[in-house]
């Protein structure tokens, strides 16, 4: 956790900056030096993660970093920032006969290492831009490759989330000594959201390299979603993109997930030269306003359907409500509810937003493996599975909730079921599984004492300060938890620069930015809202960012 003592230095810098007139009337060089000093007050590890997620053509112009555990967000809880509690994730490799039983390994690794490790296991030299094969996992690789490598993502189940509920995952814990468990694994870049990190899993590259740097990024004059145009904005190949054609497309590549932002694991499908239509099962709402919006049946939405194939038989499997009774009984009552939530209701997505979805999806995975023939021949196959319940529960109920405990327990209870499926359908000793998460979650502000900074108020105050020419063009395009997209041309018309906006942002207090869902306590009202705000363009040249790292 960042030292609270730094608040004093932030206040001091903010006071200096407040004295600098806006519109660059002071020396730009002096202002830039002040902003570099502010940026370098951020712990180097956090800057390193941020730099790995930054590319100048797609990023917002202003970087924001609240003081941990504060965060920028409203409505549902976000998970966006470079802090350990979001970045650190479990990473287990398990595969009797292929992966040695080494237990816990402490060195720092990232999810960019997953794809090259898969490659090494299946005998394919995958040129990962930022990752490398995990030497502990591949120690015995080479004799006979596994028939399938299965990557399982417990979406949102970062290390901090699991540690919050230490008794909820006995099955996962029980596998640690039988495989390789990286106790110091992290996603690699920030902001660590679903699209970016799933693409890191697939490409072995940090988001600055593979291109999907956020859930909204700049493309020319527009701000776009990463998968709005299918795989077009993913500008590096995945392991599957390169490996599958190398086998004459004899390898099977499949995904069981729910939304397109998971598809960075698999890649481009037929958009890639020589690629075929990999099997993909999603459950996404067509035209949804947010990127996590799940639908009512398994499908592919129109933006991704042209590049992948969808096995329609998955919608003929038993419905999710057929798995609901154990969920209903979790609290000892058979009352049609999971805790307080009516299971067969719209808010519960008629069972899909409850732990019932976990066995329901695993049944789908079993059917996919059986019907498509994963592991049936001597060409190693790749299968990717994303279980999203933990992430959804984290957004709605928080990582500290009893619903989170239930959700982790449900995914953990499913683990031996999935292993049984793999043993039965692919064969004992013929597969390897990597289990990880794409990010952690934000603690309940009532538990952490965090101040929730309203992005709406950030935008409102920036407009009030800098939008003075009376036209209908805003200087603020979008405020996200770690960045602000600014209209630099309009800002120039106003006689100001991004540095001026950063300097002003550093003078804002928590009291000015208090939202409605989590009002900021009066005692914190006069504290500075941000540990750092600085132009994104300063990031690559900061003297305080570590030069190297995993």
């Amino acid at each position, binding site marked *: 956790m960042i030292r609270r003592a730094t608040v004093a230095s932030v206040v001091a810098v903010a006071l200096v900056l407040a004295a600098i007139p806006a519109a660059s009337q002071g020396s730009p060089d002096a202002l830039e030096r002040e902003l570099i000093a502010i940026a370098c007050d951020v712990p180097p590890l956090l800057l390193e993660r941020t730099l790995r997620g930054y590319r100048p053509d797609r990023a917002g112009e202003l970087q924001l970093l609240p003081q941990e555990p504060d965060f920028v967000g409203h409505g549902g809880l976000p998970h966006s920032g470079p802090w350990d509690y979001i970045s650190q994730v479990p990473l287990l490799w398990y595969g009797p006969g292929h992966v040695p039983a080494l237990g816990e390994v402490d060195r720092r690794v990232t999810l960019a290492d997953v794809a090259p490790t898969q490659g090494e296991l299946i005998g394919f030299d995958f040129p990962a831009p930022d990752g490398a094969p995990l030497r502990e996992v591949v120690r015995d690789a080479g004799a006979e490759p596994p028939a399938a490598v299965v990557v399982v993502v417990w979406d949102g189940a970062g290390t901090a989330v699991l540690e919050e509920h230490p008794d909820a995952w006995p099955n996962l814990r029980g596998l640690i000594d039988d495989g390789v468990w990286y106790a110091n694994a992290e996603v690699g870049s920030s902001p660590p959201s679903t699209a970016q990190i799933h693409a890191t899993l697939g490409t072995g590259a940090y988001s600055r390299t593979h291109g999907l740097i956020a859930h909204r990024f700049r*493309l020319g004059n527009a701000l776009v979603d990463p998968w709005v145009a299918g795989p077009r904005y993913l500008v590096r190949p995945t392991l599957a993109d*390169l490996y599958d054609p190398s086998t004459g497309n004899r390898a099977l590549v499949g995904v069981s997930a729910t939304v397109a932002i998971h598809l960075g694991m698999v890649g481009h499908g037929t958009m890639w*030269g020589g690629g075929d239509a990999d099997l993909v099962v999603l459950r996404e709402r067509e035209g949804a306003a947010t990127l996590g*919006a799940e639908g009512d049946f398994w499908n592919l939405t129109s933006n991704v359907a042209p590049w992948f194939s969808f096995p329609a038989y998955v919608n003929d499997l038993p419905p999710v409500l057929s798995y609901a009774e154990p969920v209903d009984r979790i609290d000892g009552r058979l009352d049609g509810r999971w805790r307080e939530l009516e299971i067969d209701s719209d808010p519960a997505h008629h069972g899909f937003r409850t732990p019932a979805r976990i066995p329901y999806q695993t049944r789908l995975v079993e059917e996919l493996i059986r019907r498509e023939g994963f592991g049936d021949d001597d060409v190693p196959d790749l299968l990717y599975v994303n279980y999203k319940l933990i992430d959804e529960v984290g957004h709605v109920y928080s990582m500290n909730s009893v619903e989170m405990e239930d959700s982790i327990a449900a995914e953990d209870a499913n683990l031996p079921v999935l292993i049984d499926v793999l043993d039965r359908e692919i064969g004992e000793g013929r597969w390897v599984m990597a289990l990880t998460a794409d990010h952690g979650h934000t603690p309940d502000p009532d538990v952490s004492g965090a101040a929730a900074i309203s992005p709406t108020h950030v935008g409102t105050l920036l407009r009030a300060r800098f939008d003075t020419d009376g036209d209908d063009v805003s200087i603020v395009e*979008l405020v996200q938890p770690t960045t602000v997209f600014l209209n630099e041309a309009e800002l120039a018309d106003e006689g100001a620069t991004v540095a001026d906006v950063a300097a002003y942002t550093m003078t804002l207090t928590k009291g000015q930015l208090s939202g409605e869902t*989590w009002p900021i306590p009066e005692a914190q009202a006069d504290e500075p809202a941000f540990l750092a705000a600085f132009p994104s363009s300063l990031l690559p040249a900061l003297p305080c960012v570590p030069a190297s790292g995993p």
Partner: protein
Amino acid sequence: MQRTLALVLVSLVVIVSTSCDPFDDEDGGGSPQPPASVSPSTSPAPTLSAEGFLYTSKDGIRALATFERDRGTLELRNSTGAELAAPGLYLLDARTGEVVEAEVTPARPVDDGDERTFRVALAREMPPASIGLVVLLIGDADFGAFLPPAAAEGSA
């Protein structure tokens, strides 16, 4: 836990009343605040060209790239309403993923309403079957991949 209850209520009300999930990772969703410049979450099915690699955007960019050995052409039509910086492109090798640089000449911007044809010189010969992806650059900005030729892709 009063505020947590408020969070749950806000989230569930949003789900029911707006058909909008509160699960967007980066802002937590729930209270929509994006401006009009944010694109919708889905787009029409892509249009392919049998003539070459096609790039179209709803903003008014249409580009067609064709290649033969280590050379090619890039036709770019600008209907965006503003000048476009000089275009460029690069290729990704289908087998290795390696970036293959390309020089696009003349390095000139394209005025709104104009269509220009540029010459492309690749860093090395790239037979059609060796092209994994072709990526459009406008100035220094990466605009994402062209769609593959219809004949090669076949089904989309």
